[in-house]
């Protein structure tokens, strides 16, 4: 089962000027001729800044939108033509939207999903057991959803998405607003189920740790174009051209100085530290340290290459 996106374009018609008689419309290009392919069992991070076309893509893949031109096929079906058939094979977690019955314990909602997806008894029993263990739901299965903490509820939401052994699961910000321990639990679960059940995972998240734990592949989209599509490790290698050093001085109140081709900044809380970011191939670190010794007496010093967070930040700021 694979997803094939072929020269996909989506243009929205938005109301530009409201009028009683004839509203005027404006065209807004949300996706501009994008193509990619995702094979069964892949784990893909689909990311981009707000308004880049992420959720438009997810809507097209799930059949909630029809393309303006181009084509999407999921396991040979075009989801917007066969939405219900496609729905059988997918699961989803959409941010803060709930699939659970508010006044009832989670088990009641699971039971209903069993009917909606017509899950055979044996499969249901097996999946339920697995999900209860992996997501650690046992402790609160009798409590009405409205009394659960956000973290408990999100774990239950994730379980909902996997109950019917879907082949593809879309997760849109599944860890938003959740504490670190629960986040880690959800991440590990996603990584494991992707490995063991070969469920395709498509994750959009602004949380870099989510992406790095769960996904191997990265599709980066901006303004309706694909900016990068490939392995996360390759991405870091290719774009991590910056180095960042943090220098602490014995003196207080160090003023940021101007160094050519470097970006110098200072955190407001630490007046004795400077942070310098520069391109690895343009500046020699030793030379830089020589310059810095003129500023004051260096007491401490750390250096690291750009990580995924820094890379995405700079891409969003259009540096690359």
């Amino acid at each position: 089962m694979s997803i094939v996106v072929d020269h996909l374009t989506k243009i929205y018609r938005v109301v530009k000027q409201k009028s009683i008689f004839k509203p005027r419309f404006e065209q807004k290009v949300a996706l501009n001729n994008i193509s990619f392919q995702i094979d069964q069992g892949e784990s893909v991070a689909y990311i981009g800044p707000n308004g880049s076309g992420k959720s438009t893509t997810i809507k097209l893949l799930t059949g909630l939108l029809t393309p303006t031109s181009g084509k999407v096929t999921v396991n040979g079906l075009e989801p917007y033509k066969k939405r219900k058939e496609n729905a059988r094979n997918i699961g989803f977690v959409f941010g803060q939207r709930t699939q659970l019955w508010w006044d009832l314990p989670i088990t009641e909602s699971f039971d209903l999903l069993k009917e909606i997806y017509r899950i055979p008894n044996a499969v249901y029993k097996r999946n339920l057991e697995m999900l209860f263990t992996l997501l650690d739901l046992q402790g609160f299965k009798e409590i009405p959803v409205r009394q659960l903490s956000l973290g408990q509820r999100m774990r239950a939401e994730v379980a909902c998405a996997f109950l019917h052994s879907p082949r593809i699961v879309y997760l849109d910000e599944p860890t938003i607003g959740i504490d670190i321990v629960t986040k880690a639990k959800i991440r590990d679960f996603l990584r494991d189920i992707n490995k063991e059940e070969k469920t395709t995972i498509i994750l959009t998240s602004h949380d870099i740790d989510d992406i790095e734990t769960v996904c191997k592949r990265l599709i980066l989209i901006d303004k309706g174009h694909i900016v990068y599509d490939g392995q996360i490790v390759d991405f870091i290698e290719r774009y991590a051209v910056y180095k960042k050093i943090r220098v602490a001085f014995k003196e207080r109140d160090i003023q940021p100085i101007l160094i050519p081709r470097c970006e110098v900044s200072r955190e407001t809380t630490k007046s004795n530290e400077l942070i310098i970011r520069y391109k690895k191939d343009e500046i020699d670190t030793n030379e830089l340290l020589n310059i810095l010794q003129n500023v004051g007496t260096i007491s401490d010093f750390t250096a690291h290459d750009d990580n995924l967070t820094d890379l995405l930040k700079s891409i969003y700021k259009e540096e690359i």
Partner: protein
Amino acid sequence: MGGITYVYKMIRISLLSHLALRSSYYLGLFRECLFLLLSIQLFRTLYSGTGTVLSATLTETVTYIIISKFAQFFNMSTMGRIQSRIISGEIATDLLRPVEYDFFMLVQEFGAWIQRILSITFPIVLLSLLFVRFYPPSSISYGLCFVLSLLLSFLIMFFANYCVSLAAFWIPYLWSLNSVSTTLFIILSGAMIPLWFYPDGIRNVLEWLPFSFAVYMPINIYLGRIAMAELPILFLKQAVWILILWLISRFIWSKATKKIIVNGG
């Protein structure tokens, strides 16, 4: 088709989530009893004050008022639920389920209806047995026909409500539309005042509308006021109305989903 267990689970879920809100349940029951008492008293006064012969006896009217409590399908929760989901955009997740949306909502509403009959109608009818004189079904077969007709009524009212709720795809603030339509449904169906009290001209018109088939007709069957031979025609009319309303709702639905799917809501 696993439809039966699905319906059973929906009824169970409706009952359970209702029981979770116990205090609001008792308040609702109290309110219903109060209204029942008031309207019975109103009709008693009316009957004692008038010398003319009315088209139904007092006991028939009282029976009507009590039995109309089986028609617990005004203020359907479907309406509010669909509308809030449309406005919040959560309808998208419903579209990603492998079931027809109207069936999904129908089952849910059916569960809620059964739950209301069990938790509101039965207590009221039992209480009335102690304090008020009213008729049982005029015969066993009329009783059974009443149940069948009531089921069809439920479908009529469900699709009528469903059509109204889909308006949320075009109109963002629906509160006034809802209260207007609900009030209209109640008046037109004869849920509050039996249609036999309405002027002939108006009643003749109302008897052709789907709403009278939702409350007025079933209770007339219960009371045995309609000849057995006419019942098949009546059921047929109910069925035709269900079909018409269902087709209308399908039409609105396809327009609405096309609007979302092509234009992105």
